[in-house]
């Protein structure tokens, strides 16, 4: 970023650099060069003094040399012809008796990053690889990678690679680690450095000689080694055991990941390791560095997804302190929400209750939502707390509490009574759209239990003209019509007024259409309206879908100790998509865990699912088992009865989908692996009359849509449409959950 006056500065520095008096005085000369570097850091273009700086490189003062080389590495791509002038000095330095000078010159020469430099650096690098000073060898080994990347093509120098493989046996531990890094870069397109049995064992034996950075990195390379026998595997685990106790969090998590991956067939070993790593992770969670603390919390959440009770006894560690930054507090609230159990629920709720009145509105609302999450298991206590919060009459609190209530009533019908009690007179405190919608919905659906519901809605109808959110108006229409069905006398008049307003005066088309629709519906008679509007008022089975099932450890083991848990899986997926093919290979999720179907829902829930009539006519029978052969035969013999396309973003989680379908008694016959393109699934269902529904799901990632084709054994359109709507709901829910 050039700014005014920069030209003067450059001119003045140039003059100073040429001044023989300054050149004679070592300290003054060095000072001028330092000023050049400082301006360079600030973003000034200092490339004009390149010539003078090249001259300054011919010196015995090693500090000055370092500064000049730093300058040259930055501007060499801009002035390649001038930089070639410096090569001579650099080459001379490469054979200096002082290893420090040799290393410095070689490192700088390899970092010049300009075309045509390869021919000059090849020989010094080869000499450097056989240098007797380990410092020079370290530099030379990485220089190989730099040289290879400068070439810009994927041609691999076989002799060099062999030399690097043999240098893995070097005395100096840093040379060994640098060799791995260098080979990894050179062989990037061939899958990276190969870790075979001798190399793996050699590395394992050298582990204790490495420093913490080397250990963490070698542990990462060892991930790709597959032990040949069980015995060897446990030998490796025993050898690495001490690294689980390391004082460096990077090494501990690196070792944990290696354990989790190597022991993927031994769940008890995995659980054991996660118990061992509890201490270090908790220490990182309360570490002084808030960034480390945040990353550790993200990993704790990851572990909690598989082992819900894992950190329950340490719940106090996740209480927020007032000085912590916002992002840590939010993570801690999430963790608290996930580790709650019978013993600590009282304390956790008390703590969360304290957060609900926090200064930060975001944090307060997050705490209220967290209480709402816990309420699915511990309903009574939570509803009581939420009711108390309503008493504060604070707008930002009331609106979130109402939204929580709405979701809660839908999932846990047993708390409806308490919620209706709490709802009395809280309407005057809400201004935002979401909160209003939640309140209106609650009043509409459960209006018959709230004595003053019509009067509250009447206030909304009165002020509908000044209402700014169309969504609120739509909600109001539906709610009032619903309430009209249960309490016609009190609502008839205002329903008329509202319909009149919506049809005659409303400018928003969607609201107007909705008004017209309801008006015409009412013309058909009250029975028709009832049939259409009286849908179930709650759906506990949805809770199953929303609560993520316990994920097996193997499903995230490969993401452990990476950036994935830090970003969150969903966010990572968008980044990954944007990065495109750049990160192929090992980054791809390689999990192909297929939980066997069945036993995912308890018997009790299955019954409840049946009690709830999804639609009047359709009744799918549970446990309809078809063999794959029979499915295939039937599929081929039938014609497609219905075809439809639904929007869909990102990957499919087969487990979730399979379970969700199971809830509505649709069985999965076959599914593609995660990440397969195109992704396919075959489903079957049978209704009470024996009519078979065969379905194919086809996901084309590039169109981001899911194509559904349904075949039917008997042609009955009305139950076909209800079957399709069931399917649509399930897929829509799963899709929304992910996004």
């Amino acid at each position, binding site marked *: *970023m050039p700014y005014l006056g920069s030209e003067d500065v450059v001119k003045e520095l140039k003059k100073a650099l040429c001044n023989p008096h300054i050149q004679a005085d070592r300290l003054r000369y*060095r000072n001028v060069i330092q000023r050049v*570097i*400082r301006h360079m*850091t*600030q*973003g000034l273009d200092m490339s004009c003094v390149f010539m003078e700086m090249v001259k300054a490189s011919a010196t015995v003062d*090693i*500090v000055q040399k*370092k500064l000049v080389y*730093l300058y040259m590495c930055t501007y060499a791509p801009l002035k390649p012809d001038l930089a070639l002038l410096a090569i001579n000095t650099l080459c001379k330095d490469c054979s200096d008796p002082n290893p*420090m000078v040799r290393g410095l010159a070689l*490192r700088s020469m390899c*970092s010049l990053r300009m075309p045509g430099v390869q021919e000059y650096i090849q020989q010094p690098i080869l000499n450097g690889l056989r240098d007797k000073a380990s410092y020079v060898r*370290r*530099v030379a080994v*990485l220089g190989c990678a*730099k040289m290879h990347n400068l070439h810009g093509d994927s041609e691999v120098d076989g002799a060099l690679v062999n030399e690097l493989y043999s240098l893995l046996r070097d005395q100096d531990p*840093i040379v060994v*680690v*640098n060799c791995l*890094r260098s080979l990894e870069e050179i062989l990037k397109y061939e899958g990276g450095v190969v870790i075979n049995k001798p190399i793996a064992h050699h590395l394992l034996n050298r582990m204790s000689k490495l*420093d*913490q*950075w080397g250990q*963490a*990195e070698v542990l990462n390379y060892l991930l790709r080694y597959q032990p040949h026998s069980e015995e060897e595997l446990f030998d490796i685990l025993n050898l690495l055991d001490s690294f689980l106790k*390391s*004082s*460096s969090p*990077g090494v*501990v*998590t*690196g070792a944990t990941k290696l354990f989790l991956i190597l022991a993927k067939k031994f769940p008890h070993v995995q659980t054991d390791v996660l118990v061992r790593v509890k201490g270090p992770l908790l*220490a990182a969670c309360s570490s*002084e*560095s*808030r*960034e*480390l603390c*945040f*990353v*550790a919390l993200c990993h704790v959440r990851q572990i909690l997804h598989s082992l819900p009770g894992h950190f329950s006894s340490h719940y106090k560690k996740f*209480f927020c*302190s*007032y000085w912590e930054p916002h*992002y840590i507090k939010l993570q801690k609230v999430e963790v608290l929400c996930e580790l709650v159990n019978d013993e600590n629920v009282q304390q956790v709720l008390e703590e969360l209750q*304290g957060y609900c*009145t926090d*200064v930060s509105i*975001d944090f307060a609302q997050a705490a209220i939502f967290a209480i709402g999450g816990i309420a699915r298991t511990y309903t009574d206590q939570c509803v009581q707390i939420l009711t108390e919060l309503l*008493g*504060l009459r*604070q707008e930002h609190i009331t609106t979130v509490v109402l939204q929580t209530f709405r979701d809660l009533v839908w999932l846990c019908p047993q708390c409806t009574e308490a919620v209706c009690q709490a709802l009395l007179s809280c309407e005057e405190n809400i201004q935002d759209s979401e909160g209003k919608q939640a309140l209106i919905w609650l009043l509409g659906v459960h209006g018959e239990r709230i004595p003053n519901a019509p009067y509250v809605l009447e206030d909304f109808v009165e002020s509908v003209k000044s209402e700014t959110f169309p969504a609120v108006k739509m909600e109001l229409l539906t709610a009032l019509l619903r309430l009209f069905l249960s309490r016609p006398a009190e609502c008839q008049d205002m329903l008329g007024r509202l319909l009149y307003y919506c049809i005659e005066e409303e400018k928003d088309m969607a609201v107007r259409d909705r008004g017209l629709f309801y008006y015409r519906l009412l013309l058909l008679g009250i029975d028709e309206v009832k049939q259409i509007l009286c849908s179930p008022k709650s759906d506990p089975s949805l809770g199953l879908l929303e609560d993520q099932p316990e994920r097996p450890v193997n499903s995230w083991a490969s993401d452990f*100790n*990476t*950036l994935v848990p830090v970003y969150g899986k969903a966010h990572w997926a968008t980044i990954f998509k944007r990065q495109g093919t*750049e*990160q192929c290979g090992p*980054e791809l999720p390689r999990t192909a865990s297929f939980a066997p179907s069945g036993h995912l829902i308890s018997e009790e829930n299955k019954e409840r699912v049946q009690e709830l009539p999804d639609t009047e006519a359709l009744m799918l029978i549970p446990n309809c088992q078809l063999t794959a052969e029979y499915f295939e035969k039937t599929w081929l013999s039938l014609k497609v009865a219905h075809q439809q396309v639904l929007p869909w973003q990102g990957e499919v989680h087969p487990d979730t989908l399979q379970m969700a379908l199971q809830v509505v008694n649709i069985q999965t016959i076959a599914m593609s692996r995660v990440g397969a393109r195109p992704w396919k699934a075959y489903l079957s269902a049978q209704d009470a009359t024996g009519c078979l529904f065969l379905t194919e799901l086809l996901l084309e990632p590039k169109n981001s849509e899911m194509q559904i084709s349904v075949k039917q054994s008997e042609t009955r359109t009305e139950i076909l449409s209800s079957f399709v709507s069931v399917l649509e709901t399930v897929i829509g829910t799963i899709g929304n959950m992910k996004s």
Partner: protein
Amino acid sequence: MISQFFILSSKGDPLIYKDFRGDSGGLDVAELFYRKLTGLSGDESPVVMFQDDRHFIHIRHSGLYLVATTSENVSPFSLLELLSRLATLLGDYCGSLSEGTISRNVALVYELLDEVLDYGYVQTTSTEMLRNFIQTEAVVSKPFSLFDLSSVGLFGAETQQSKVAPSSAASRPVLSSRSDQSQKNEVFLDVVERLSVLIASDGSPLKVDVQGELRLKSFLPSGSEMRIGLTEEFCVGKSELRGYGPGIRVDEVSFHSSVNLDEFESHRILRLQPHQGELTVMRYQLSDDLPSPLPFRLFPSVQWDRGSGRLQVYLKLRCDLPPKSQAVNIRLHLPLPRGVVRWTFPAYQDPPATGLPPQPLCWGWALQASPLNSPGTHAPASRFASLGWLSGPVATPTPTSGYATLATARPMSFGSEAPQTRTWQQRKKASKWEEDNIFFLGVLAYGSGCRQRTPES
């Protein structure tokens, strides 16, 4: 693997910028980072951010941003650890880490980075190995410090402070030996404790959490063995009982990996051979019942006059530190209830402060002086170095919002900085380190931060 590393000042100016792999693509990466950071929405975390095909991972240290960028899915633990280590290293070599020291020592920092990272890969971070390669000497400026003055007592009398080194004594570079022949063989051992206390309306502590650590800064020649003796009554865990009295108890304790614990069980002695520079020797945690009283006690009283809508908050803060210690930089924040239209602060300020509610609905007051001559002192300084009592703002809630606004009053917080006493020992430079240096120390309550919940009315 790091692509770029840079240090930004708190205002976003680049102080240091190094491109290790030349893949910045001509972008001003540092500016990109700062723009992204300042434009984050409330629920996004700034620690790891993604922009333009690169991940930005940063730590904040002493008001500076130390940022690394990478395009690979690296281990966040290792990278954050590396950034912290770099911060410590820079602090060791430059004396202390701040915007001033970094910009004075640009050449040294670049030299250090050059040796620590090559092509974005860590080479070594050990102070010992690095000192062979670092040629630049740190530029240290001696800033004017009030602590230097405070060591001079009234009429030249010896004060408590003159017996201990000034707090800035430890903030000097480890590598000054070349120029400064009179280099002292010094060791500084700090006990840093962080208290988090939740106090009920009657003044009794509801929740107490102490996190402490022993920080060692050594200027001794490397390889010299050091023995740190803790008091023998030091107990770990709830059940252990040592000594006769209540002793000193912590719940959990962890040590740096270089600490030899052979004599810890029997004599509570930590043996270590510290490298030069800073090192956290021991961390400990303590929660719930404290063996000793809190350094501060708070006596709140809230009066609510329904008729006039006036709320009077009296806060009495009492400091129970022993007389030889002092609390500095005490800050007190009192979040005001919503709906406050006016507040006055009559006590001991001339003229009484008054005003409209400040924007974040929070009222803060910093006591800038040591307790003995604090402007807030009510009574003559007692043996307890009492802070006196200060009376909080008189807030007037709007009559319409009524009673319920009170219940949303948020926790009040106050914090103070550590009394800057350091335990240090000086020895003549010996060719062979024969004598054992044993420092006896009790765990003393040191920095503190408390928060208090205003009573539910």
